[in-house]
């Protein structure tokens, strides 16, 4: 079992003591001491309330916390939950923890969780985010029950989000995955999701872990593996999604974890997505998506400036990536004033598809390709914000749907580029 040797002896000993389980909750952490207490209580309440008879374990995989996060996870007693929730545990609920050295990439944590799930023969598993500060105990049931009871293999969440939250998801990942893979999964890259043992085991056995980290964006790879493997996928509406306040993440690392992973997957998944026509909804419990419309200040001017600057400064890079008409289109809108600026859906889709094709061909360094898409994405966001500034939830949904259809309509264009390269 070469794949399991990365588990430490101490962790293995803990797993032996836990034994076979029905429910496994994976909790990757790194310096989450401020929030982890409430998250663990939520998990415990969710297990007691939704799965009181099942054998369950919480597995914390920590990436080198220096704030005592692992100790907090294992030290929180289920008895702390019981009086408040009036819940009673029939069974022992284990909370165990392990850590890993080196880069705190999510891939290592997820691989550890998958390995534990396989060794413990967990029937249903869930990964919870240590930063989902408003997570509710019923999230566990919502993400686990379709697997445990209904035989699904992957449950992705949908949330009640602000209409301008998750713009990478709404403007690129969701529509592109939908168009290429034919499956309408709203949140393909998410820190909390449920999965079956058979999906987890299959993914664990795949190649791609060789570098020891599994690479970033493993959650997205996991979702795509579920789709291409023909596993049963569904969505479950969780409710409002908040996360801890933190410094705005640099866009490029996020693009690497998402767009980079997606582009990379297109290569290996070509035989699958090239045959897909149109798209199908996935079974969904609760709302497909709910949008909040609270007023929000956004600096569209700066976004447009970053777009224009990027188009100018990266011209030589874009010449390697983009077709002349697309590049001309970008240069044309880059010259427009703030009021006239409009990055159309069609031009955006063509841009993305051409980036994907260039990534496959490796016309330049793949990482540079991913970096180069950042200013263009900002331009697209600028337009999206403008279009939807006063839009109702329905209008926003209509716009997103329009973009999705554009991705689907232009899919032959991507296929044409891909095949011409072959």
């Amino acid at each position, binding site marked *: 079992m070469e794949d399991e040797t990365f588990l430490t002896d101490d962790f293995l*000993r*803990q797993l*032996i*003591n836990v*034994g*076979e389980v029905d429910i496994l909750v994976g909790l990757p952490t790194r310096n989450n001491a401020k929030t982890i207490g409430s998250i663990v209580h939520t998990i415990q309440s969710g297990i007691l309330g939704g799965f*009181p*008879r099942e*054998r369950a374990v919480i597995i914390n995989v920590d990436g080198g916390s220096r704030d005592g996060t692992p100790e907090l996870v294992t030290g929180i007693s289920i008895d702390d939950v019981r009086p408040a929730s009036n819940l*009673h*545990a*029939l*069974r*022992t609920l*284990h909370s165990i923890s392990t850590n890993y050295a080196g880069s705190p990439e999510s891939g290592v944590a997820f691989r550890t969780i998958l390995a534990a799930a396989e060794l413990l023969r967990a029937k249903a598993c869930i990964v919870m985010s240590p930063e989902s500060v408003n997570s509710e105990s019923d999230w566990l049931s919502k993400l686990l029950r379709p697997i445990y009871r209904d035989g699904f293999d992957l449950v992705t969440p949908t949330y009640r989000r602000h209409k301008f939250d998750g713009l990478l998801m709404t403007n690129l990942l969701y529509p592109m995955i939908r168009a290429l893979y034919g499956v309408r999964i709203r949140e393909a890259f998410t820190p909390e999701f449920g999965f079956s043992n058979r999906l987890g085991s299959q993914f664990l056995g795949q190649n791609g872990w060789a570098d020891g980290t599994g690479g970033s964006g493993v959650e997205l790879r996991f979702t795509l593996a579920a789709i291409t493997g023909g596993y049963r996928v569904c969505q479950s509406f969780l409710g409002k999604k908040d996360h801890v306040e933190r410094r705005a993440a640099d866009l490029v690392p996020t693009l690497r974890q998402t767009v980079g992973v997606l582009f990379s997957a297109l290569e290996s998944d070509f035989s699958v997505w090239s045959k897909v026509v149109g798209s199908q909804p996935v079974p969904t419990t609760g709302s497909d998506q709910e949008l909040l419309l609270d007023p929000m200040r956004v600096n569209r001017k700066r976004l447009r400036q970053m777009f224009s600057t990027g188009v100018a400064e990266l011209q030589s890079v874009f010449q390697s990536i983009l077709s002349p008409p697309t590049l001309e289109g970008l240069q044309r809108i880059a010259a427009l004033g703030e009021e006239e600026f409009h990055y159309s859906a069609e031009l955006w889709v063509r841009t993305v598809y051409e980036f994907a094709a260039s990534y496959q061909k490796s016309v330049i360094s793949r990482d540079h390709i991913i970096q180069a898409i950042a200013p263009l994405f900002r331009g697209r966001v600028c337009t999206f914000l403008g279009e939807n500034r006063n839009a109702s939830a329905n209008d926003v949904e209509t716009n997103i749907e329009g973009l999705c259809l554009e991705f689907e309509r232009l899919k032959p264009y991507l296929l044409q580029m891909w095949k011409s390269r072959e």
Partner: protein
Amino acid sequence: MPLNKDALWYKDAIIYQVHVRTFYDSNGDGIGDFQGLEQKLDYLQELGINAIWLMPFFPSPLRDDGYDIADYNAVHSSYGTLEDFRKLLESAHERGIRVIIEMVLNHTSDQHPWFQQSRSSQNNPYRDWYVWSDTDTRYKGTRIIFLDTETSNWAWDPTSKSFYWHRFFSHQPDLNYDNPAVREQMWNVMTFWLEMGVDAFRLDAVPYLVEREGTNCENLPETHTILKDLRRKLDEQFTGRMLLAEANQWPADLRPYFGDGDEFHMAFHFPLMPRMFMGLKLEDRKPITEILQQTPEIPPSCQWSLFLRNHDELTLEMVTDMERDYMYDMYAESKTMRLNLGIRRRLASLLNNDRRRIELMNGMLMSLPGTPIIYYGDEIGMGDNILLGDRNGVRTPMQWSGGWNSGFSNAETERLYAPLIQDPVYGYPAVNVLAQRESEHSLLRWMQRIITVRRSTGAFGRGSIEFLYPANHRILAYLRKLGKDVVLVVNNLSSTAQAVELDLRRYKGNIPIEMFGNNMFPRVGDLPYLLTMGPYQFYWFRLRRI
């Protein structure tokens, strides 16, 4: 083998619970009797028990299997005569077996002359011996125990045109313990049997003796005062006798029944029993350790009484709703298996006749703190008949052999007080004493062995308990200590093989000696003591420093 003179004999006892009616019929009338039981005392001695607890054998209309007593100073004619009982008592004592009998203090049969007098007129001297009322609205806060059959704790008596109080069946009116004459009379009844030589009483339904408005009429201080008075009289007039409380209550509510060692000597630990079954099914020690953690210390002279099954349903009163639902789903999938708040099945059938689980449960019964009680027939793995009403399905004739009427009676089969178990798995041709005596590896032989081992040390009956909490929750491990005698008990509650590491550093240098085979295991060192255990396996180790 004479009786030992130790006043704390009940701490070392292994009690066998039997109904005279069910055990052996000596006169061929289809009903077990005292002479029959006496003839089978050798069997019980061979089994290794040293006390028998007899269910009610008093004159009774038998509408509640004898718990509806119509005369406290006689025996039911079906079982023989008072002289027969005396001879049984004498024969048991000759074999070193003590005799515990039932004493139903709380209520009588409605056929008892006291009640007949009481209902006959408002002015009758016995009127105040029972609890009467013009309305059925008093004591509203009192729960109904027999939910399946009763809708109120009050019953209308058309004779005296008033309501009488009953906590159990309506044909069992509660005695009025506020009446000093009742208290005196019940002590007289006890004296009658004590003078005959009875060693102990199991006092039935003791929490319910007294009623008070605004309470739940259970465990009241006045009840404890009455019980303490009985104990005082017992100690003053009779030595070496014992009172065992039947009080189906939570541990904290049970504790007062021991008083300061001046109330009951023993009490059943009702909440533990269902949790042993729960722990086995969950494959998790949590229910067991949790309830024992909640169990308060009791005075040194007192003792818990433990059991796996008895003549009643497997009571689920002392569990949470969620636990009860779980128990029903796991152990009584058919509604006919359920009765009141419980499950009316025997040990073997509850455990699907799985020999390993039966042994493990008996292993825990014999090694947890308390005095174990074995229900008749469970030592051979008898089954039940859920088609018989009420709790009669677990009260069928003892299966002595595969012959006529299972060797229980020479009567025509139709005359037996209850049908024999005849199904292919548990029926008497397959499960009987004769066959198991002949088989070295039978459950009966195994039970004899474990009783022998249990009796080889005082640690089980009198020792302290200290739980070990290995990280593997499927393992229930504890130390029983009495002086220098230390016994390590390790139970695997799981259906699969398990590895467990025990922290025994305090016993570094000791050699664990497995008590069934007297084999040595590796000496305890600095490292966690590693054991691998088969499914449902258990170990008893005597820790010896040599």
